């Protein structure tokens, strides 16, 4: 008999966005993974089918929403529908990527339907592989990387007799464990106390925009409230553009070395870079909040069970201009460590508490920037494929729920990629250029002279 489960906090985050923005498009995630090699597509199809059996999250479906808009999830035995093959080899790679980008905009509309589609692809320049399009409530990017590696291990096992991949943790068991943990009353009370204490101590947060204080001023005028501390979010035009910047291996190494020498995590250094820029363009504002995504994947089972385990929490710090760079970095690290310890909490409850306390108007926010740092390279780590050129690409779903969402990842050659997703309704490529330029200036000034104050850095960059 089918077992029905409520959504986890991470799944609810995506579900709430779908409801708020009234389109499933905001929850789409797509990637193509391919190799410059001939592929036995008959065998590959069987491996994909086997992967769907192994990786339970690919078979998740959702019930019809109830009167409150809530859905339940269940796991089917099979993923219905064929796994077709599309031949794009006659195109240029750019044309093929453009076509796949169109596929990534597709929505999964309906209840009790599969939320995952796989297409095998013949790409230009001799690349062959597959394109996968899923709903983010089923999987996050880490989960997709694990799935791609597992699938390629299955293929190389059957094709080249390499070792069979290790068993993956059972998605349903891990889901049940997560839900049980979320219902632990003692833990819930401790987590709630932490988040409430923060508001007790610091009061209402203050919005800071990439474009400066004029954005908050506009919202203040719109709501007729000169003291409003939250700004309006874009609900209608969700179109998003992506601008990528590449940081060379040598400067990347400098950032990594600085983190290692000072026992800092890269996430916290990046948060400091963004918040210093926000402070600079908002007249030295000291109270800054950035939404930071974390992936709740710490145990072996959490790593291999798939599912959507990425969730965002507001990282709020008050850093005066007189504080030196390294102290500010530790201030952020200290806050992030506390957040990690209380990250079983549902962030929707933090927002709810703020709305209750401060009468925050509907559809307003305290944050303009969102960060994801991915320490894991998006690469097939199969020894049989290591010398074969690969073409992998993530496709944006085309509908951003966030004004600016930065994903930082490491590249195969030791560099870093800064991928800025921005809503075109209010931002232009030039805004991203400025943000990246100043972020880098702040970070490299700071790591060169960690005793320099934040105020001095803001003045010099």
């Amino acid at each position, binding site marked *: 008999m089918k077992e029905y489960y409520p959504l986890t906090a991470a799944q609810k985050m995506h579900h709430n966005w779908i409801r708020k923005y009234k389109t499933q498009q905001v929850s789409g995630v797509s990637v193509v993974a391919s190799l410059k090699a001939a592929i036995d597509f008959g065998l590959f199809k069987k491996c994909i089918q086997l992967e769907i059996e192994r990786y339970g999250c690919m078979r998740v479906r959702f019930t019809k929403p109830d009167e409150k808009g809530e859905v339940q999830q269940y796991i089917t035995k099979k993923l219905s529908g064929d796994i077709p093959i599309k031949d794009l080899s006659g195109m240029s790679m750019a044309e093929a990527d453009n076509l796949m980008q169109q596929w990534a905009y597709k929505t999964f509309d309906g209840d009790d339907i599969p939320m995952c589609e796989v297409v095998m692809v013949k790409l230009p320049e001799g690349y062959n592989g597959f394109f996968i399009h899923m709903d983010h409530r089923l999987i996050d990017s880490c989960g997709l990387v694990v799935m791609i590696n597992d699938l390629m291990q299955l293929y190389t096992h059957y094709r080249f007799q390499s070792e069979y991949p290790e068993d993956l943790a059972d998605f349903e068991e891990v889901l049940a464990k997560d839900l049980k*943990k979320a219902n*632990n009353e*003692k*833990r819930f009370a*401790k987590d709630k106390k932490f988040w409430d204490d923060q508001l007790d101590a610091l009061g209402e947060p203050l919005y800071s925009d990439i474009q400066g204080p004029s954005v908050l001023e506009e919202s203040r005028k719109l709501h007729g409230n000169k003291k409003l501390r939250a700004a309006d979010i874009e609900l209608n035009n969700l179109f998003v553009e992506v601008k990528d910047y590449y940081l060379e291996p040598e400067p990347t190494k400098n950032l990594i070395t600085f983190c290692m020498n000072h026992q800092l*995590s890269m*996430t916290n250094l990046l948060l400091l870079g963004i918040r210093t820029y926000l402070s600079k363009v908002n007249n030295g504002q000291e109270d800054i909040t950035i939404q930071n995504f*974390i*992936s*709740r994947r*710490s*145990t*072996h*089972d959490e790593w291999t069970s798939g599912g959507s385990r990425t969730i965002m929490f507001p990282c709020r710090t008050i850093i005066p201009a007189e504080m030196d760079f390294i102290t500010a970095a530790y201030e952020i*690290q200290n806050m*992030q*460590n*506390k957040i*990690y*310890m209380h*990250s*079983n909490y549902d962030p929707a409850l933090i927002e709810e508490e703020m709305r209750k306390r401060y009468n925050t108007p509907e559809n307003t926010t305290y944050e303009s920037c969102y960060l994801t740092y991915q*320490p894991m390279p998006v690469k097939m780590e199969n020894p049989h494929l290591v010398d074969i050129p690969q073409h992998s690409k993530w496709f944006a779903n085309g509908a951003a729920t966030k004004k600016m969402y930065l994903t930082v990842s490491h590249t195969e050659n030791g560099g870093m990629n800064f991928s800025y997703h921005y809503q075109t309704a209010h931002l232009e490529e030039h805004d991203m250029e400025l943000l990246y330029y100043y972020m880098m200036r702040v970070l490299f000034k700071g790591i060169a002279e960690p005793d320099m104050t934040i105020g001095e850095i803001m003045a010099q960059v």
Partner: protein
Amino acid sequence: MTQEMQFKTIVAQFCDLSPEEIEDDMRFREDLGFSSLGFMQFLGELEDTFDVELEEEDALQVVTIAEALELLEKLQQEA
């Protein structure tokens, strides 16, 4: 199962070793590969399993398995 083995069984869920392979002088980050998030979530597991309350500041001073076990015993005695 002894408390030490129960403790090491939890540690093993967060790294690639079996509980028997985990030695007292191993460091969480450098030897066992714990991330910041992993370490804080591990502390949460300890709190739930052993019914203790950890102060974040104390917990962040912990470097090795032996130090974590010592802190755990101290908290249980105080409870």
